[in-house]
């Protein structure tokens, strides 16, 4: 549990970060809260000769809610997110999700940006951001660009981000309506055995719109368009929920690990999604 030697940098602006990334190429990584990268370095599974700490860049810590548009800086911690009255009011699903991530000590350090950018299928924020149809804002040598969370994840730890790009912020339109983040885990601090993010808009007693994403049930988060579609136009009755679950099960591809075999995970995924939909509908 001793990392290989590395050089440590703490630039004070994004230009400095980009310059370092350009200089060192794939030998450099940016460090946010460190709860994924540092253990990997200690296990010597990640070799990072040049470690660029983003803690010195204050501009990445902003939370902005303008009308329905929510923008969260990449270095906002899970604790900041839980603590923000503004966010809790605009998009309460963020708080509900963050409270199910790790434990308070980890949440003081762990960041939304790190959670989203890393591409770890176990992280909770990626699925949530897909559910919310968030945009991820990246900056690189060629300037800024945005990419949909739903297009960002390619495989475990493989994302659309280039080596010399940095995630700066995440934004989305907060929709009124019902929501739920339901997660089963073995213990505090654990990744999900299965988790579901659900938002539902209700109109005249039926589902006007629904978005569903699942966590840790494939090598990427899974936004199940078909599962959401299965609810639209229904009264969110048992049959509709069953159809949504069936659609979701067609989109996930869990693997066996210490949390259990595939059959168990698929079963639990269905139960968890059913509960999430039920709670979201109750709140819609």
């Amino acid at each position, binding site marked *: *549990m*001793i990392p*290989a*030697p590395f050089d440590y940098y703490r630039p004070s602006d994004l230009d400095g970060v980009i310059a370092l990334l350009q200089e060192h190429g794939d030998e450099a990584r940016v460090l946010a809260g460190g709860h994924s990268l540092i253990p990997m370095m200690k296990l*010597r599974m990640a070799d990072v000769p040049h470690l660029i700490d983003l803690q010195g860049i204050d501009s990445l810590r902003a939370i902005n809610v303008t009308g329905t548009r929510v923008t969260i800086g990449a270095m906002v911690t899970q604790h900041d997110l839980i603590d923000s009255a503004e966010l809790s009011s605009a998009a309460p699903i963020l708080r509900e999700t963050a409270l199910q991530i790790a*434990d308070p000590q980890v949440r003081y350090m762990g960041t939304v940006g790190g959670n989203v950018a890393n591409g770890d299928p176990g992280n909770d924020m990626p699925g949530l951001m897909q559910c919310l149809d968030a945009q991820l804002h990246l900056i690189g040598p060629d300037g800024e660009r945005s990419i949909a969370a739903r297009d960002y994840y390619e495989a475990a730890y493989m994302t659309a981000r280039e080596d010399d790009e940095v995630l700066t912020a995440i934004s989305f339109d907060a929709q009124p309506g019902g929501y739920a983040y339901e997660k*089963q885990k*073995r*213990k*505090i*601090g*654990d*990744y999900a*055995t299965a988790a579901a993010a659900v938002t539902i808009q209700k109109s005249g007693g039926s589902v006007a719109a629904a978005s569903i994403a699942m966590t840790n049930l494939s090598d990427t988060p899974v936004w199940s368009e078909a599962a959401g579609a299965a609810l639209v136009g229904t009264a969110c009755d048992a049959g509709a929920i069953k159809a949504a679950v069936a659609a979701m099960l067609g989109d996930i591809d869990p693997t066996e690990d*210490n*949390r*259990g*075999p595939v*059959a*168990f995970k698929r*079963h*639990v995924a269905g*139960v*968890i999604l059913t509960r999430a939909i039920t709670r979201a509908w109750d709140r819609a």
Partner: protein
Amino acid sequence: MKDLNEEQQERAAGLKGLGCSRKRVEDARFTQGKGNYVDDIKMPGMLHGDFVRSPYAHARVKSINTDAAMALDGVVAVLTAKDLEPLSLHWMPTLAGDKQMVLADGKVLFQGQEVAFVVARDRFIAADAVELVEVEYEELPVIVNPFEALQSDVVLREDLAGQTEGAHGPRKHHNHIFTWEVGEKDATEQVLGDAEVVAEETVYYHRTHPCPLETCGAVASMDKVNGKLTVWGTFQAPHVVRTVASLLSGIEEHNIRVVSPDIGGGFGNKVGVYPGYVCAIVASIVTGVPVKWIEDRMENLMSTAFARDYWMTGKISATKEGKITGLHCHVTADHGAFDACADPTKFPAGFMNICTGSYDIPTAYLAVDGVYTNKAPGGVSYRCSFRVTEAAYFIERMIEVLAIELNMDAAELRRINFIKKEQFPYQSALGWEYDSGDYHTAWDKALKAVDYEGLRKEQADRVEAFKRGETRKLMGVGLSFFTEIVGAGPVKNCDILGMGMFDSCEIRIHPTGSAIARLGTISQGQGHATTFAQILASEIGISADSITIEEGDTDTAPYGLGTYGSRSTPVAGAATALAGRKIRAKAQMIAAYLLEVHDNDLEWDVDRFVVKGAPERFKTMKEIAYAAYNQAIPGVEPGLEAVSYYDPPNMTYPFGAYVCVMDIDVDTGVQEIRKFYALDDCGTRINPMIIEGQVHGGLTEALAVALGQEIAYDDMGNVKTGTFMDFFLPTAWEVPNYITDHTVTPSPHHPIGAKGVGESPHVGGVPCFSNAVNDAFRAFGLRHTHMPHDHWRIWQTANRLGLHD
């Protein structure tokens, strides 16, 4: 003790003796980060060691090239078996009569085995150098299943090839270690054959790990000028380490000083001797400077002593009315690559023969076969006396299975089979003499406290509601009644490597009436500095606040066998009381002189000697202490000191009654503990607050083991649970509120009647949690399902019973 008047009670309370919930004196430093653990020890010029470990579970080591590592700036040495061989230290004896490689000698036998020891200027260079050591392996077939091991042609221990006799008798196969038999085989088979009812079950107690928060480590410092070796380390038995180190190294014992500083939890993990200790010592002898070795968490989980891994097959017979007539138990014990169990020498399966539990079982037989596999060595007693948790789990599962077979309530089945109060001292069929007990009183109190009948009614209603589709949650009522055997032990049958398992206390009273006492034990969190002072306070009438307790430095403490198996209070606690009585006896002579009366004219009164019939004439212990040093008393040596070495006449047998109420979501496998009630009878209670803390800790570790904590291997012998992501260590979040209760049945042979308590909650807790899970599914036809009861295994049980259809 006779009744005290108000004034005497006030003086007694001021002593903070037996029965006082005195706050722990250790905690001021621990809660302020001022503890002094092994890794806090820093010495000038100190070097740091780190291991190259095998990635394979079974492989031949073709070559080891250390050139690149040695070329790294700051690397001082890289030791391999070849370097240790001239010192005959490439192998070392284990506590179980086997031997173990210190560094890989020709092959490796488990993943994480120590292959080479790098010594460098700092910890970081050492870790970098580990990466640079090139080891060429040739993979060999891996065996992780003990039943397969006994069938396989693959010889795991080539060093033992052809040896048909082991440390504990004949070996039946090249991967077989020993067979240990207790009881009457033929008679038991006869009883089982004739029985009206027989229940059979195989109960697997999975491999797990004690996982103390502080991992293992040592700092060795060889002073070449005065020839003295000092070793600070995470040792639960520092005196044994000194003797073993002397025997192995040839350094005379007076030239070795072993120190256990503050220890951050042991739970059996720190009883054994590990290659890291040996390598640190050798490296210090070679380099002439201090060498530190501290293992990391993954190394701790992968390579230092595991616990359990017992396949227990039982048959239990009874009359139709439920009176138990016989018990048969066979264990296939997976010991891993080397037999490094920490048991008294004559007990290769520990005290597994306590497996008749709390029941009057007239005929019984136990056989244990130890087996080698490609897993880490160990087999230590994780928060229990030697294999007592395995025994308790076995019998408490067998009772439940028998209750199903008899279609009987499991609480009632226990009640009609308990050893009765008047049967103590009780001779068990497997050879133990239980000292004291009152099981029926404890059981009735426990069942009443939880409204047992109400729980059963609620459970039956829940089953009906479940069948009607109104709920997806089942309810389990877990019961356990356990009897431990602790306080090893009488020297006549208990020794470790030939060293008798007595313990000791040495007391020195200072002239102004305060004192220091040193013991042969070593606290790892038990609070000895608090509780042993309380024993003494009550014995010698000096406030516990005025008594320093010191342990762990072999240069100053009297010889003792250390702390594990709940032996500190039963053995060293007894030595403390008896040493205190020696102090009091001398004090009485001094007081008699000072008061100008005959010794026999004095009586002890809390903290003083009083002239019988003249209560105004007395000498306090404080006054006596001053006189002992400063007044010439004819025929009495100056000073006030005593030492006692205590060889217990018997073990002690704490017991308890536990009930767990659990709700289980059959769709997700998630369980929730609604209530946990624990009644413990540990005899005389020294510090109720510390007892409660011990019970909470032991139950929490029981919860961990029962509900998810395991060391799991894949077929290639890779450890699947080497980090806290997968190795379950509960936090406050996972732990329920425990309800604690007690009865008091003193040990008749212990000077103050105390029995020991630290491990009881673990021993009783594991079967209680497990029985709750099993019980939830009893109405649906489940007889037994193996631990650990994590979500997916509970779900699998529900699935197999058709509850998801």
